[in-house]
């Protein structure tokens, strides 16, 4: 068989495969995904007034002491681009970024107790990490309580409600979903 005939067979094969795998397969999965409509459409969060205000899977940027802060993000949670800082953990740039974050956090949280958790000082891989550690959430309680005039105990209960434990206790690690936590805070008003 000549090269030309092989190329022709290749072209036909590619077109057939495109129909099967590029149209048929995604269509079948999309239909089957309707069994899980919420997940398939991005686990959207809806506010009390019915507006879509985000996704339970994505972090958001929050300004002001009255909100629980998510992790630092290389893309400021815009959703138009995603990714991390790509800094080596031992690089001078990264050490400086950590110091700056540490200083800013100490300044904004004068009443916080204990060391600043690691996840508060480091940018996530996606820039859209919805979760923080339980330690970091609790570390922020004094600031949020003062800014909102909400008892700390109530905030602790809300943190517990927004905590997503790792499956089986070790497939990943526990996280507090800041987007859900702050949505609960805004709904409280």
């Amino acid at each position: 068989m000549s090269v030309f005939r092989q190329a022709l067979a290749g072209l036909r094969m590619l077109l057939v495969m495109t129909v099967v795998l590029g149209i048929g397969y995604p269509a079948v999965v999309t239909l089957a995904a309707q069994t899980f409509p919420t997940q398939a459409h991005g686990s959207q969060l809806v506010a009390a007034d019915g507006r879509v205000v985000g996704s339970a899977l994505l972090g958001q940027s929050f300004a002001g002491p009255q909100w629980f802060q998510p992790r630092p993000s290389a893309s400021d949670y815009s959703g138009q681009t995603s990714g991390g800082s790509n800094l080596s953990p031992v690089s001078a740039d990264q050490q400086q970024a950590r110091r700056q974050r540490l200083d800013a956090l100490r300044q904004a949280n004068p009443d916080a107790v204990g060391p600043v958790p690691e996840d508060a000082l480091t940018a996530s891989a996606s820039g859209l990490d919805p979760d923080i550690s339980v330690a970091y959430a609790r570390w922020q309680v004094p600031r949020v309580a003062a800014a909102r005039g909400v008892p700390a105990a109530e905030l602790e209960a809300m943190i517990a409600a927004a905590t997503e434990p790792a499956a089986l206790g070790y497939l990943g690690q526990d996280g507090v979903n800041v987007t859900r936590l702050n949505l609960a805070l805004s709904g409280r008003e």
Partner: protein
Amino acid sequence: MPPTLAAVLAVLTVVVILAVIHVPLGSWIHRVFTSPTHTRVERLIYRLTGVDPDAEQRWGVYAVSVLAFSGVSILLLWGLILAQPLLPFSQGRSMNVDTALNTAVSFVTNTNWQSYAGEAGAGYLLQALGLTVQNFVSAAVGLAVAIAVVRGLTREHTDRLGNFWVDLTRGTLRVLLPLSVIAAIALVACGVIQNLDEPVTITTIGGGTQVLQGGLVASQEAIKELGTNGGGFFNANSAYPFENPNGVSNLIEIVLMLAIPSALPYSYGLMVKDRRQGATIAAVMAVLGFGAMAALTALEVAGGSLEGKEQRFGTAWSAIFASATTSTSTGAVNAMHESLQPLSGGVALLNMMLGELSPGGVGTGLYSMLVMVVLAVFVAGLMVGRTPELLGKSIGRREITLAALAMLITPTLVLLGTGTALLVPTSRHAMLASGPHGLSEMLYAFTSAANNNGSAFAGLSADQPFLNLALAACMLFGRFVPIVAMLALAGGLSRQGRRPVTAGTMPTHSASFAGFLLAIILVVAGLTYFPSLALGPIAEALS
């Protein structure tokens, strides 16, 4: 649970799952490629494509079929990417001409290096019609070649290695497609999105704005991992919560990457009618693969840094993913590899530098390992003064020349490519870091491209004409030179008769041969790459 215990349990979980699926998946793949009958759908496909499914091909024709199919795929995919601005469901996304060529080569060679960002470069139509399709067929090409190479070892006095179009179709329809459908639905259940909703800008809880992305992500994600492809729907790849929302989806994705490559040695054992041969290869793959996984995990857990990692995965599961993705030629990431500890970045590099055989990509892992088996048999034969033989086939000058070619092409591309790129000002200025970490960045890019992995030290601004073209060339040669060399090798072996086993035959299924094979792999990779590793990750770790 203490972090060390959790990390040990995590690695063991992956080991146990792979051990459980090893035999059933390996047997199934063996049956797919040895079954004499075609299904009705397959017959229809052969009719539509004008292929005679029962006509077997010589190695040369088989190789031309591989190259023709891949060549046509590159041209059409390149065209489809460039046509994006004219096509519906493209969300206004586009790529430059050189970026588009790099991407087309990248997806056809099963590399899935991405010098574009998914959110800006690839619309829904391209992702489904172009990228998802190549995710399947590029993996099926690797699988087909591996099966053809094994046929060369099993057959006697024939010059036929099978029919590429049949192997391609069966691998796609009987292995990759059913597993992908199941995996995709499982991923949707975990939270991976699957829709045609346009991206929308919403007002966030705090009063800011954010874009919520849509897309046919789950269907692409499943084959992205199962086919050891790795090209993310989004820029952040499997770190993006819509691609990998939680610990369960993360485990599914890790298992998908490793499933077929780690089961193929069992299929190999069945095909050569000596399961010990397959077990030997599986053992060597396991020592290298799980050894690297344990080392990377220990380094990351000890380092403790969460820079470039997601809270829901933490250090251990980011490290396991990083090791799985680099030892399988997948290249998907759930954490930014450039932000790994210096030595863990070095382990990720070493996984690729071994030649993607621990267990390697779909199909490519098996035939890359067979290259090393041929070399090991030859070297061992020289050392003890016996005629080198593999499964009764003598390994002579032609065989060793072809195996050496298949083995040497990637280091040549990596070292020449890295050296050149460091000298050329345009690419040198693309580096984010300087010093040893900067070298690692460039070394990683060329190692990833030439070994068809696709992960990156993503600080490198690789989307520029020089790097796009240089890396595309590495991907092409790194993919097709070994394929042609291995098919030629198999074609020669299939013509030979099988020599009977005598007391003088050196067994290739013993523990001592496995140890020797392991040593050959480590010595070859070590001698080739140690200087560059010393100047990059090792220097950074020591400074």
